[in-house]
């Protein structure tokens, strides 16, 4: 009991600190990568290579004056930034980030809380993120802020459905909602990105929308809504919304790595998940997990500085008319295939089954790309060459 409490508290503190430092560095990374893509230098004055820039920004935000709109609903206005950033941090509690660590008092699983309903917990908590944004928009008593808040809630509810649907495929294959079991399953057979490629694509798109990142950052579209839901916020409260956005990105990236890319699994080897746990294994798997998460974070930033923003009706049409129906069809097909392979032929989830499912996904992927393309890019050039 005491060991559990102490190890849990240590894990909570370490994970919290790591995410906060990660978020700070991520704001710098975003600006440096953006600068690099636009052939500029970016912030490089504070500290070596601008590494202390986040500290300077934080200090600036703490020292700035806080303004409160006269007609704002004071308590809701103050509560909203906290509400938007707490769920993002809570979600990380169930994500396993490394192989178990052996200590002299016993084995410590490298996850803050390995809940038996881990995966559903993530869906539940992430559905709360919308409160902060909606309340911020409403309590500011500002038309643009309210519009941003309403856009955010509509967008997040819409894409939550597609996101939930895409993860049903993962649950079908894993047959379990505990994230450590999902990872163990992938270590056995192969990463779910191979056997459930389309589900990953839908999840990735929905994750972009859920975190309000470009090309789906309609809630704060500066050309239309000044700054959207955080128009009236200043100083550290404004900063809190930024921290929330980036910690949401970290969690979503970690989640994609866990659900579809094997979590802390080191690819092409079973050295990490068989045999006795050791400190070296924990460290190496932690590094691998960070690399996977980092790759997704880079993709987030890359997409932000590459794609233009969607129009609002396009966003809704994509969510409701494309993603949701196609995910339902995909789910039916995958359920049938998994039922046939697992229930009928009696295959367990291993390499051959993963590859068979991968082949089925490849066919579906080609069909989906061809369908979405609507004669514009791929089929367009082919048709032109034929003519």
């Amino acid at each position, binding site marked *: *009991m005491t060991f559990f409490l102490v190890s849990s508290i240590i894990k909570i503190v370490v994970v919290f600190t790591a995410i906060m430092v990660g978020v700070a560095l991520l704001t710098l990374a975003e600006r440096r990568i953006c600068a690099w893509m636009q052939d500029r230098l970016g912030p490089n004055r504070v500290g070596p290579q601008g590494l202390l820039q986040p500290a300077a920004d934080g200090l600036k935000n703490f020292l700035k004056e806080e303004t409160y709109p006269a007609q704002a*609903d004071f308590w*809701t206005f103050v509560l909203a930034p906290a509400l938007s950033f707490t769920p993002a941090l809570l979600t990380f509690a169930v994500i396993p980030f490394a192989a178990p660590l052996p200590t002299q008092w016993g084995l410590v699983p490298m996850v803050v809380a390995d*809940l*038996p*309903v881990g995966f*559903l*917990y993530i*869906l*539940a*908590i992430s*559905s*709360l993120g*919308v*409160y902060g944004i*909606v*309340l911020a928009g*409403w309590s500011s008593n500002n038309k643009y802020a*309210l519009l941003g*808040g*309403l856009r955010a*809630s*509509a967008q997040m*509810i819409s894409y*939550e459905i597609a996101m939930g649907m895409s993860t049903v495929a993962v649950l079908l294959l894993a047959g*379990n*909602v505990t994230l450590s079991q999902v990872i163990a399953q992938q270590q056995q057979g192969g990463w779910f990105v191979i056997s459930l490629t389309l589900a990953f694509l839908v999840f990735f798109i929905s994750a972009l929308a859920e975190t309000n990142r470009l090309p789906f950052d309609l809630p704060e579209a500066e050309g239309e809504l000044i700054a959207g839901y955080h128009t009236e916020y200043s100083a550290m409260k404004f900063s809190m919304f930024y921290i929330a956005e980036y910690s949401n990105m970290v969690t979503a990236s970690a989640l994609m790595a866990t659900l579809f890319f094997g979590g802390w699994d080191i690819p092409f080897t079973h050295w990490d998940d068989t045999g006795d746990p050791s400190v070296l294994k924990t460290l190496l798997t932690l590094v691998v997990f960070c690399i996977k998460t980092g790759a997704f974070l880079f993709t987030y930033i890359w997409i932000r500085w590459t794609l233009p923003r969607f129009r609002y009706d396009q966003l809704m049409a994509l969510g409701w008319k494309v993603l949701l129906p196609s995910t339902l069809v995909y789910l039916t097909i995958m359920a049938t295939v998994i039922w046939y392979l697992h229930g009928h032929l009696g295959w367990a989830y291993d390499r051959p089954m993963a590859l068979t499912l991968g082949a089925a996904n490849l066919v579906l992927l080609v069909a989906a790309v061809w369908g979405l393309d609507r004669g514009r890019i791929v089929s367009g050039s082919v048709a032109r060459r034929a003519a």
Partner: protein
Amino acid sequence: MAWLTGHLTVLVFWAFAGVAIVSAAMCVTRRNPVASALWLVVTLFQLAGLFVVLDAQFLAVLQVLVYAGAIMVLFLFVIMLLNLGQGGPHDFKGVIGLGVGAVLAVLLLLQLSVLRHLEPPAAIALPPGTMAAQQAHDGLVGTVARPLFDAYLVPFEITSLLLLAAIVGAVVLAMRKL
């Protein structure tokens, strides 16, 4: 320390239950509809916590996911769009209102005190340890899902039809205005 670990469940229960009661009271006494809705969210959270204390994590997660995450967000949405302002003029505070409230409260207390001394009927009581064995066998989700998609499949499907009918009805009502 030994006392603390022995009574931890009770302490956690009272923490959740206490906040639940306070927030439920706040929910019905607030004038501002948005504040009222937010207090209701707090209450729903405390109930989820109580479910966890009862070892029903799946129900707790569903409570947060469905009620706090989806339904209450839509409630807030509607309240904000309707722009109800700062409380209506029709406040329920007359002598008759208070009297009805008091009678109902006494009735509820009586029911609760009777229930406290009653044993559940043998037909619905399970022998101790049945749930734990069931959860060990089917898993947390399976314990709920298996009866739902097995013994109660037809009622479950009828419920979904009912919801569909409600959605169609809502769309028809909205269409009249469009």
